[in-house]
């Protein structure tokens, strides 16, 4: 009957349409097939960290035969955006690497699992209580610090010595640093350093060297347009003199070491966090070393020990226990620590830190020695920055672009930044 045929084809089309729609959504079920637990673990970093992470993950899988860990990583900027989108869509990875600047936002948004409830699987007694507390928001342990890091001047010691300029010393001031940069530029024929004007981190060190801070305790700006104008005038002058890298170089910075002037052979020194500086060695070769950040004119140190990164788990994870076990493994397992070395900062687990200290080699040892050299002389770290800070970092860089391309004066750009920062922190 023709009527039946129509009915049939209608039904067929409907079924086909539905099945197409459903298969589109059904993909995620397959990952848990075969009775295995699949954990998704995402982090940011460089290829060096990637290789070590894969090795540690393989070891974890070997020791936990029922668990598979799917890892993925990206550069910091891309990672930040992807994670925010995933989290908002309710699809945060089971285990994720977090930054000091992200914790506040993620914890208050209900994205993170209360790790305090996972005490059985996740031991925290070997971590310094002050450091552990940096992962606490509103009384709940949402994240576990994984390493500690501090900023440094990374430099090519051979080139520096060849130029015949006095080597950096502990307690040097920003003025001494600037003199060294001018001299390096003159004698080495290329800028002494990257232009620190674009870096909110460097500005913070400079600011703390004067006893001020980026944010006040009640999450407001801790500095004025005058402070920022002075900083940008200082760096702008050095750039005009060719002592630090040009605007064309600075604008290409995206957080990856590959695009830093030091890696491109266009500068002798750089500012960076200590552990990630290991990424330079693959490009520049050996001979890189670390020096303390310049301090205020009265010797007040501006740098501080910061939990370099955290591990957290998603509140929506179906495997809270396995996630906690994995975090525990990455932080407390000796074999994992031996593999990971200082790729995520010097470990927070104290026995492990003492244990692996003598075994560290290559750049890891440089990092450990550097941390030892400044340990005890630094001031306490600031509180975790308020949520708006993640986008202000980018704004800072963009506003300085206007200065270094000479489209705005330091004063104009500073006022631009303060306006945006106030709007950002208000919301």
């Amino acid at each position: 009957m023709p009527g039946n045929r129509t009915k049939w084809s209608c039904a067929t089309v409907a079924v086909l349409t539905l099945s197409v729609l459903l298969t589109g959504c059904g993909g995620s079920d397959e990952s848990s097939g075969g009775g295995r637990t699949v954990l998704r673990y995402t982090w940011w970093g460089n290829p060096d960290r990637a290789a070590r992470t894969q090795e540690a993950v393989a070891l974890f899988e070997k020791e936990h035969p029922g668990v598979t860990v799917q890892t993925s990583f990206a550069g910091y900027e891309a990672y930040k955006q992807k994670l925010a989108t995933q989290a908002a869509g309710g699809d945060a990875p089971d285990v994720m690497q977090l930054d000091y600047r992200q914790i506040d936002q993620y914890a208050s948004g209900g994205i993170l699992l209360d790790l305090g409830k996972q005490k059985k699987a996740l031991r925290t007694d070997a971590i310094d209580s002050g450091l552990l507390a940096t992962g606490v928001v509103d009384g709940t342990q949402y994240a576990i610090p994984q390493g500690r890091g501090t900023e440094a001047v990374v430099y090519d010691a051979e080139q520096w010595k060849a130029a015949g300029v006095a080597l950096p010393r502990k307690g040097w001031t920003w003025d001494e640093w600037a003199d060294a940069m001018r001299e390096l530029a003159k004698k080495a024929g290329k800028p002494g350093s990257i232009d620190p004007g674009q870096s909110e981190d460097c500005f913070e060190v400079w600011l703390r060297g004067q006893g001020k801070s980026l944010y006040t305790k009640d999450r407001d700006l801790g500095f004025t347009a005058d402070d920022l104008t002075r900083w940008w005038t200082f760096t702008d002058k050095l750039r005009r003199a060719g002592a630090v890298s040009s605007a064309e170089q600075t604008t290409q910075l995206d957080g990856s070491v590959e695009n830093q002037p030091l890696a491109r052979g266009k500068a002798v020194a750089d500012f960076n966090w200590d552990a990630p500086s290991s990424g330079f060695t693959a490009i520049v070769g050996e001979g890189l070393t670390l020096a303390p950040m310049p301090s205020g004119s009265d010797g007040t140190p501006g740098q501080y020990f910061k939990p370099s990164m955290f591990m957290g788990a998603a509140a929506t994870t179906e495997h809270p226990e396995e996630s906690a076990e994995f975090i525990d493994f990455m932080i407390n397992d000796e074999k994992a620590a031996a593999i990971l070395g200082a790729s995520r900062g010097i470990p927070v687990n104290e026995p492990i830190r003492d244990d692996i200290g003598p075994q560290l080699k290559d750049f890891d040892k440089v990092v450990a020695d550097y941390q030892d050299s400044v340990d005890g002389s630094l001031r306490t770290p600031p509180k975790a920055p308020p949520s708006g800070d993640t986008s202000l970092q980018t704004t800072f860089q963009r506003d300085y672009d206007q200065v270094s391309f000479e489209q705005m004066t330091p004063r104009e750009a500073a006022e631009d930044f303060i306006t945006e920062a106030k709007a950002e922190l208000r919301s």
Partner: protein
Amino acid sequence: MTTTDIPAKPARAKSPAPPRQQRGRIRREGAAWVFLSPWVLGAVVLTLLPMAVSLYLSFTDYDLFNAPRWVGLRNYVQMFTEDPRYWRSVGATLMYVVIAVPLQLALALAVALALKSMKRGKSFYRSAFYAPSLLGASMSIALVWRAVFNDGGTVDNLLSDIGIHTGGWVNKPGWALLAVALLTVWQFGAPMVIFLAGLQQIPVELYEAASVDGASRKRQFISITLPMLSPVLFFNLVLQTIQAFQVFTPAFAVSGGKGGPADSTLFYTLYLYDRGFVASHMGYASAMAWVLLLAIGAVTAVLFRTSRSWVFYANEGER
């Protein structure tokens, strides 16, 4: 089965034509709806609903993590009065539209003219010139573009060889915008194919008559080709302008997502993306999207208005 069928037949016979027809219509309409359903579903779920949500969000403060908070017109007020970077993004976008669209259309028309008079290998060249339009929107081509125009890239090296040292295009304000515009211009394939079709519609007799009258090639182009082609030109202009306002991928890739150097490639959509996904101000980003929609609508309306004075339809004389 048969027992139920038998009483049904007389029932149908009692009230014969109308219900049967009606049922047939319903059945036919039903089938139409079933076939339409993928599209309808797509339109509602993927277009209309998100648009409605975005309109709502544009009046809220929404950071993706916490529930949206109603703020009325604050996003719009902030956009127009308190955000210098917003205006820089508007400026960069307008500059881009003004540079890229005319260049692209001129190139498309020139190549179409060259192809039209070509005797052999026409289809090969047509495909060859069209290929970039298929590839161009992709991230990978944009990244290649960045490498080509970067400090020490191909373009820089070639220019250095002939004595012009640029030190890269994508890291200089002013130059970077040009590099991005060139990427768009390079994708002139789609308007070119449309121009080619339009050129082939122009009756040959017109040119023959003109040559008999002794009109030069230039004269023929101005007096015959351009007027006869004006509807196609108009179509391409509207389409490419709308597309240019929404440019995103090339600028994102070339500037590493920041719209630099010094905000010179901070196009509207890039800043919108930045507000939404980097700064987590979804409400503000939605408000920006609605302003863009209205602006594109307004520009298109203006183009249509001006078209009355320069677009010539061949059948107008008959009316």
